[in-house]
């Protein structure tokens, strides 16, 4: 790695001062992706800024009305073990179990993972289903970016060069929320993503409302599928599901990669999403029974 200065500010203001110096600054969360770029020489910043010590960055707060606030430097492992996640955000918890490896989950942070903006981000897909909002800070002030607007496709984000994610907010969800995530990867630990499908719905009386569908691996970013969600409202019949799946196919733009063709990714997504939706419906039936 090329030489750089490692700094660890204790406040946003201090962080801002480094941005103002005119030097190139890269933010270190858990380093899971930054290290790759430093090692292969893709990045050679003057400053590597570790944001873990900025107040609030490691906070996790849950309130049954206000929802969940996750500090940007909270690691992914917390999504596996955190009691509030396991209880109130089961889809996020289920997804987190499958993310990378314990080594990576212990280091990689929520802010860093979202800012990396991988087109196959499973974390983002799950966050999309929960209507998460990214809160950021830059010297001009703070702003809130809904997660669906954060991603501009192909690893690009709406974040400015001197903008930091401070925390992510997830609204509260009723206890009767079902979520299912399905994926197909070449290697079964999650490497080489072919496609992934997250589905979420809230049980109200004996029906399912608030359907959320998010897909990944089939476009330049993880995406919600509002057209399909609308078709699923209520208690979807088989033909509703078929129509929803067709709507998804109309709204995705998969790319060929070395290990999977675009048409294959479409087929796989269709199969995964069908299973995800069906699992939620089965869940409801189990619940009613």
């Amino acid at each position, binding site marked *: *790695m*090329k*030489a*750089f*200065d*490692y*700094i*660890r500010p204790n406040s946003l203001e201090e962080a801002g001062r480094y941005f103002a110096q005119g030097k190139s600054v890269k933010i*270190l969360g*858990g*380093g*899971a992706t930054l*290290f*790759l770029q*430093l*090692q292969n020489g893709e990045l050679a910043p003057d400053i*590597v800024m*570790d944001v873990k010590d900025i107040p609030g960055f490691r906070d996790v707060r849950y309130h049954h009305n206000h929802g969940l606030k996750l500090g940007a430097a909270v690691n992914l*492992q917390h999504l596996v073990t955190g009691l509030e996640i396991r209880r109130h955000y089961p889809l996020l918890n289920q997804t987190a*179990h499958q993310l*990378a*490896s*314990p*080594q*990576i989950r*212990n*280091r990689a942070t929520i802010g860093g993972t979202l800012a990396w903006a991988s087109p196959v981000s499973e974390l983002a897909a799950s966050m999309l289903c929960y209507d998460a909002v990214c809160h950021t800070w830059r010297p001009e002030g703070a702003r809130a970016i809904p997660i669906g607007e954060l991603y501009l496709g192909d690893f690009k984000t709406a974040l400015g060069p001197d903008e930091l994610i401070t925390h992510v907010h997830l609204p509260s969800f009723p206890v009767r929320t079902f979520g299912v995530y399905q994926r197909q990867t070449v290697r079964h*630990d999650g490497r080489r993503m072919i496609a992934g499908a997250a589905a979420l719905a809230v049980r109200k009386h004996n029906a399912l409302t608030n359907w959320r569908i998010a897909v990944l691996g089939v476009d330049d970013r993880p995406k919600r599928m509002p057209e399909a969600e609308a078709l699923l409202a209520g208690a979807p019949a088989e033909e509703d599901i078929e129509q929803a799946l067709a709507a998804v196919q109309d709204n995705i733009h998969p790319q060929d990669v070395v290990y999977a063709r675009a048409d294959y990714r479409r087929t796989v997504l269709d199969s995964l999403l069908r299973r995800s939706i069906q699992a939620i419906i089965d869940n409801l039936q189990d619940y009613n029974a």
Partner: protein
Amino acid sequence: MKHEIRFIINGESRSLTVLSQQTLLEVLREDLGLTSPKHGCSTGECGACSVLLNGEVVNSCMVLAAEVDGADILTVEGLATDDELHPLQKSFIDHHGVQCGYCASGMLISAKALLNRTSRPHEEEIREALVGNLCRCGAYADIIKSIQVASRARR
């Protein structure tokens, strides 16, 4: 940039001067002579460099040495006591949980992290806990068995 760091390594307190860009792996191996963590890929894929950082398993090739100021670190050198091997080490020996041995340190560390939070893991949990540790000899089945037996013996 230079940093004075102080941390606990295998139960001993150490102070050291490191450069910003030095990784924890580099400092452990080249400066402290702790060579049980191995270089395998430097992309966080293989887990050969795994160490415990404040009780949690991490890839030491993806941690800056400057970051560990104040931390508690364990490598395989600190696993056995003076007169006794750690139950995991014994079990790996008895149950052929090692072939070429290059991944062994990382496997032991991941196993230790698992047993720190789950005293009697079942096979599925062990498989999950090891997905970040590659073994090209394919010794996974015996590694899993070694960990299972060690967890039973430990109580």
